[in-house]
């Protein structure tokens, strides 16, 4: 149920990002879609990917805003500062309340987090037939992760080939 809500939110944010007139609004729509993806990872019980998605999203948004902030900045100078301030405080309050609810659910500091990993340790050799448990996790249980690393290497090689190719280049 929450997953469907988040997916509809992401689709809406993506449409806003494509259709917005100025670059800053489109960037905010893009980052909203990325935040929704991070939440979807959290709901699907993949906190590792959620953290990665969140960090990469923050970095990309910082770079993109830095690149576009000087191009066009919508200046709002009419007297809406009271509404803006009240809305900001309301959102901060809602965020703190939700964060308080979420942080109470976390296990205590130092408690072992072995919800998924104990299955890896117990059933890893029987399920994959690999004595090397690290390889069993990286290539079999977390094969999707290794696919991302292989895609990074592929993109790096193709990028080097595309930059240093001989044909199709304009001679200086």
């Amino acid at each position: 149920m929450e997953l469907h809500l988040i997916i509809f939110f992401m689709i809406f944010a993506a449409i806003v990002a494509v259709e917005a007139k100025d670059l800053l609004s489109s960037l905010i729509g893009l980052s909203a879609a990325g935040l929704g993806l991070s939440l979807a990872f959290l709901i699907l019980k993949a906190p590792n990917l959620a953290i990665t998605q969140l960090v990469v999203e923050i970095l990309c948004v910082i770079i993109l805003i830095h690149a576009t902030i000087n191009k066009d900045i919508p200046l709002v100078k009419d007297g809406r500062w009271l509404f803006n301030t009240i809305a900001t405080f309301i959102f901060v309050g809602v965020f703190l309340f939700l964060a308080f609810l979420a942080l109470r659910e976390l296990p205590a500091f130092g408690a072992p987090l072995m919800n998924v990993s104990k299955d890896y340790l117990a059933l890893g050799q029987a399920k994959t037939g690999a004595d090397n448990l690290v390889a069993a996790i990286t290539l079999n249980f977390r094969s999707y992760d290794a696919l991302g690393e292989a895609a990074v290497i592929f993109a790096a090689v193709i990028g080097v080939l595309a930059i240093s190719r001989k044909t199709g280049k304009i001679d200086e």
Partner: protein
Amino acid sequence: MNNQTGMSLIVKTITRLTVGLILIYGIYIMLQGHIGPGGGFAGGVIIALSFIHLILAFGRKAVFQKMNEARGLIYIASGALAFLLLSTLGFLGISGVGFMPFCDTAVALLVSSGLFVMFLVLIGLASKEKRI
């Protein structure tokens, strides 16, 4: 093979003896990644190093007849596609014992041909700049 290109006769003779061993060691590291330390990435780098060893000893022209940029691109693409296929098979529930050497082989194909083609392109650039 003429003796004009590449390094001296001693280096060429020793290279003829050792390059096969290096290649076999790379394949061994690649295939035993699920038993001991090793795996596709390390094995692929060793396989690429054996080809680079050949280039350093015999010169570029001797190796370009066997392996060039276009053929390397085919290997890169086939390795990436094979690993994509293997790692998305998990969505269908197809996984199990004896599955990991294939994953390692696909990764090693991608990594070895990728590093080798990168090296080829970079030394191609270097030689072109030296000629100018």
